[in-house]
């Protein structure tokens, strides 16, 4: 293991790697298989094993290098395999495809049509990333290298120019220069708040007190977001390099990487990256011979959303309960063990090497007036191409959902998008042309947050989704301050009544009042933003609330208490699935109306708990279970049943 003791050593190592025929730069064939959590869940491990075995069997294990790489983001189509040097991009690869890939693509250099991405709209096949709409419309600076790098091998990162920014900072820039560069770049924190990164660094630098600390926030408790996981798993050295530069800039000698324990692979890869950086002398004393000493420790979180908040996270690092404390003084001045502590999000840190390498001018040329650079979004929910997408700030939601995401599955209509997680809100369809940046989304009552974009179709109930977030936050509120703890509980009670059809006329007013109080008086941002899901849905979907309250009707047919289930005898094939699965035992075979008619199932409405399991287990070719909502769906209401069974309008299957 070469210990790098100077900038020269680093350059030599990089040159050595590329001239020795490192597959990344040379023309030799090699195969990248995404080994991110997503592709692994879809069976990537078996694909990797198949490659190993097949290459060995053919005696090609030496000639063709196999890399287990980070996540390129197109999780929808995993397991993903890319064959280099041509960069042929294969999707949904199974172990059975592996011998063919070796025979056809690697040996004979022929494409395999069946593994190429097919555009569902045009039918066109995409061979390389830039021919696949999902990638084509992105601007990938942060996650671009994930598919080329084995995150467990520091050489891969170095071969692609890794740690060059650190070398530059240490050898050619003063700490002040570094901070000026970050300030001029206009970078704002990616953890949700959007605080100008350079300013934060400046105040940590200026703060008195030693030692100082730098910290990576990879708690990522925001449900629906996974960009930090993909970076930490897929390119951990880019985060570590950013952290090193930050430590140099503010004068810290010690750092922490806080990763939630629910991300075991991110924990593992972060740990490996630290060990390897240490072995190469990129952590420790006299880094690259510059007189700068720095080391990092890994800290695992243990499942608490609120622990991602800055003061809570620092409490956790001190071994205490990870709950927030009042912030009379910024943590950059007094944080961990009351020392100046610079906390940034994973993605914020990963941007730093780019800024140092390519300059603040380059960085600030991307994006909008007040939001610079690219942002990684997790595009998920009811959208065709789910995955991670990196785009310049200021793209519209519509472009993201339709150009990159390929639209909504099943011919459904888009109802809106949820952004910003539990601190954000729902933006309705008519605002999809909004530019996505820090400020625009706030003006619609939502926020960018950590970058989750959850697409909703007509089958999502706005009230139920608000209730879901409030429920989530009730669970996750640490309970320390009253406005958050009790406010959430009160909101939950009211929303539970509304979705059960027992809402009262004054409920919306009460919800707004509670929201106002929580926003004004909560201790941390969890409570201060907790009402956003409720407020934004009331603002944009008030009529849906009113349908629940006044008509006991759930227009999206989601709220269990307001939906009744019936079986249409003429469609039912009496397969018995619903009867088997009904937890109430409410389903039995019906009395045939005439002798010789086909058997069918009926639901005993007095026993039905309206869980909807029958609806979901009814085979998709049969679809005999129907849902009805509204006052007239009272089970004792004969006409409603007749209506449902007769296939009248007013309900949806």
């Amino acid at each position, binding site marked *: 293991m070469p210990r790098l003791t100077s900038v020269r050593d680093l350059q030599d190592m990089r040159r050595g790697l590329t001239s020795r025929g490192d597959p990344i730069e040379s023309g030799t064939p090699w195969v990248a298989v995404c080994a991110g959590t997503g592709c692994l869940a879809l069976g990537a491990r078996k694909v990797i094993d198949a490659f190993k075995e097949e290459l060995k069997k053919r005696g090609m294990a030496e000639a063709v290098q196999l890399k287990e790489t980070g996540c390129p983001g197109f999780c929808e189509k995993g397991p993903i395999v890319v064959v280099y040097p041509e960069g042929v991009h294969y999707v949904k690869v199974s172990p059975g495809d592996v011998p063919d890939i070796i025979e056809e693509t690697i040996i004979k250099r022929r494409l395999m049509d069946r593994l190429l991405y097919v555009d569902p709209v045009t039918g066109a096949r995409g061979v390389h990333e830039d021919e696949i709409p999902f990638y084509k419309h992105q601007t990938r600076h942060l996650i671009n290298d994930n598919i080329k790098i084995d995150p467990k091998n520091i050489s891969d990162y170095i071969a692609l120019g890794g740690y060059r920014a650190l070398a530059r900072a240490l050898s050619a820039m003063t700490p002040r220069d570094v901070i000026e560069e970050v300030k001029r770049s206009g970078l704002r924190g990616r953890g949700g708040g959007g605080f100008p990164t350079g300013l934060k660094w400046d105040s940590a630098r200026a703060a008195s007190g030693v030692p100082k600390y730098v910290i990576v926030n990879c708690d990522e408790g925001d449900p629906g977001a996974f960009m930090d996981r993909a970076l930490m798993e897929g390119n951990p050295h880019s985060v570590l390099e950013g952290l090193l530069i930050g430590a140099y800039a503010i004068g810290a000698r010690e750092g922490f990487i806080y990763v939630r324990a629910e991300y075991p692979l991110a924990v593992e890869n972060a740990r490996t990256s630290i060990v390897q950086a240490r072995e190469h002398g990129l952590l420790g004393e006299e880094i690259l011979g510059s007189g700068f000493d720095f080391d990092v420790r890994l800290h695992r979180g243990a499942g608490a959303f609120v622990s991602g908040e800055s003061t809570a996270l620092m409490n956790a690092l001190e071994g205490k309960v990870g709950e927030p404390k009042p912030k009379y003084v910024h943590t950059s001045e007094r944080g961990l063990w009351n020392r100046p502590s610079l906390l940034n999000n994973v993605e914020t840190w990963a941007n730093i090497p780019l800024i140092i390498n390519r300059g603040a001018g380059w960085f600030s040329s991307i994006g909008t007036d007040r939001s610079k650079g690219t942002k990684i979004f997790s595009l998920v*929910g009811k959208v065709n191409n789910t995955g991670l997408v990196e785009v310049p700030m200021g793209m519209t939601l519509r472009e993201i959902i339709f150009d990159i995401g390929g639209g909504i599955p099943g011919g459904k209509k888009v109802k809106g998008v949820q952004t910003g*997680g539990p601190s954000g809100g729902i933006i309705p369809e008519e605002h999809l042309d909004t530019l996505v940046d820090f400020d625009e989304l706030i003006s619609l009552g939502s926020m960018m947050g950590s970058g989750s974009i959850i697409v909703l179709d007509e089958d999502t109930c706005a009230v139920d989704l608000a209730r879901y977030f409030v429920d989530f936050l009730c669970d996750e509120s640490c309970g320390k301050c009253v406005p958050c703890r009790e406010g959430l509980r009160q909101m939950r009670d009211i929303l539970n009544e509304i979705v059960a059809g027992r809402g009262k006329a004054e409920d919306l007013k009460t919800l707004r009042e509670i929201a106002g109080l929580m926003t004004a008086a909560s201790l941390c941002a969890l409570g201060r933003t907790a009402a956003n899901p409720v407020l934004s849905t009331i603002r944009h979907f008030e009529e849906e609330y009113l349908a629940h309250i006044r008509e006991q009707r759930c227009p999206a047919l989601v709220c269990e208490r307001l939906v009744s289930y019936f079986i249409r005898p003429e469609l039912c094939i009496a397969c018995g699935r619903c009867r088997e699965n009904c937890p109430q035992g409410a389903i039995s075979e019906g009395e045939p109306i005439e002798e010789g008619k086909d058997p069918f199932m009926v639901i005993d409405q007095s026993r039905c708990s309206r869980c909807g399991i029958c609806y979901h287990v009814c085979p998709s070719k049969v679809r005999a279970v129907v849902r009805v909502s509204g006052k007239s769906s009272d089970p004792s209401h004969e006409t409603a049943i007749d209506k449902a069974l007769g296939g009248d309008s007013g309900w949806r299957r």
Partner: protein
Amino acid sequence: MDAADLDKVDEIIDRYRGQEGILIQLLLDLQSELNWIPREVISHLSERLRVPKSQIYRIASFYKVINLNPVGRHVIQVCMGTACQVRGAHKVLDFTASRLKIKPEETTSDLAFSLKKVNCLGCCSMGPVMTVDEVYHGGVNLEGAEKILKNLS
């Protein structure tokens, strides 16, 4: 707990000798060894680290990942993150719970299964997501959940 187990506990504690702020890390390591944190371990930790038991309980009960009760041989997690939620995760949870005849966060009386709901596993592209003994399953509908459960029993 027998002596061998306590030796293991001591060995884990010794890994962190001389470091500050390690209680959560210790509990996580102990749990990955023992699957849960029995009372005896908390007493033992309290003696070894000279930290009041109440303080250890305070931390152990704050974090969802830490199990203070025995867990089943199979641990099933259903992700309730937003992306899974809008694709029907609550139905998968209800279904699994009714099949196992326990509520979320409970363990069957024969200690065969524990059911947990988690707030986001970060595999949002493939929701609804369910993990069984740390193996991830994506795109789980009720049929899928049924199959997964059948394979276990």
